[in-house]
């Protein structure tokens, strides 16, 4: 008899424990509803998280592509805030072509290199470029001046490299170094 009672008591305790558990879950759900944060997302949670992570990953890799340049000489981090779209709006194609054309001669690149160290008179440039005539030198200087890469002082006659001229020279040097590096690889 006592054995039967013990068994009954055990079952009752188990039922009570189960009921207590259900009551606890119901109370918690009601409490969440009252606080307005109960969301029944079920299996959508996993899908949502996967989509979100994919978007974040794409965004990060896009930023990395824009800001990190992996070249033959290593990794270079580019700092900047201008978007490609903004840069495109500012392009003056005619002017860009004029500048690129002005850079399209070895002697003109040499002239820019000489001017990087400071203003020079024509005779000083002639000493460095002895392989060309004075008239050819003046013609090159005129081309560079028209492109806005150099400016001539009217009183003293010295030629000076401008800020765009300095940037153009640096750009030309960088561009030509890149393929050389790749060939070495």
């Amino acid at each position, binding site marked *: 008899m006592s054995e039967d009672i013990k068994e009954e008591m055990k079952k009752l305790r188990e039922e009570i424990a189960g009921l207590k558990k259900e009551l606890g879950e119901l109370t918690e759900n009601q409490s969440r509803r009252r606080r307005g944060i109960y969301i029944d997302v079920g299996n959508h949670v996993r899908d949502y998280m996967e989509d979100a992570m994919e978007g974040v990953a794409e965004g990060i890799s896009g930023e990395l592509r824009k800001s990190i340049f992996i070249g033959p000489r290593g990794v270079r981090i580019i700092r900047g805030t201008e978007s490609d779209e903004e840069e495109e709006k500012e392009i003056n194609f005619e002017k860009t072509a004029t500048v690129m054309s002005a850079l399209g001669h070895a002697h003109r690149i040499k002239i820019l290199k000489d001017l990087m160290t*400071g*203003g020079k008179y024509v005779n000083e440039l002639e000493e460095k470029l002895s392989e060309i005539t004075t008239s050819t030198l003046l013609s090159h200087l005129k081309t560079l001046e028209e492109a806005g890469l150099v*400016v*001539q*002082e*009217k*009183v*003293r006659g010295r030629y*000076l*490299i*401008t*800020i*765009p*001229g*300095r*940037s153009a020279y640096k750009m030309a040097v960088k561009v030509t170094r890149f393929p050389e590096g790749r060939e070495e690889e």
Partner: protein
Amino acid sequence: MNWQNYQLEKAVLKTAENAVLWRTGKGQMEISKGSLAIAIKLGDEKRGYIFHGNGRLILDTIVETREGAIGKPVEKEISAPFIMLGAVEENFTAANQEDLEKMGYEDQEAALTNATELLSRFSRGRRIHEHHCCGANDGQIFAFPSANGKFDLLVANDHSIVYKTEGLVFVTNRERSVLKSSGETVCVANGRMVVVRRHGDFRPQNLQKNAPERTGI
């Protein structure tokens, strides 16, 4: 009597030779032979001239920095009458009727009337204190009438230049330069450069040592 008005001489002269009115390493002002010249006086002393002829102004309004040069030279043919205050080499002869007619004046009186009106616009009727006026070694002031009824001004001595025209202000001495154009203002002082662009784009990129070459003027 310390406060006086500028007055004009009653004689109209002309330059006997091509003349350089001002010259430094940064700019020069020339006037051609045969240009009319009327002396400006303060009390009994000559203080300058009003010239009318073929003048030519060259000014290297260029600021040098280690990142490159900014600005362009100014070259202007000056065919309208202009004012010059300061010392000038006296190499004049009397202008005759033919000289006056070349410049579009019927007679000497017409030239003087035009010059008086120009001087009055420049001084705006203000009297000048003797101490305010430049002496023989204090440099020169040029005032060129511009299209909008104002004056382009050039104030220069051996080591400093101030030039103001429509859309451009250029100030320089041995140590410092300021170039203000319509798009940006560039200041180079004590080896440091700051560029301020329109729409509030302030570029102190160059607050590191960025000394321009010492060129003098």
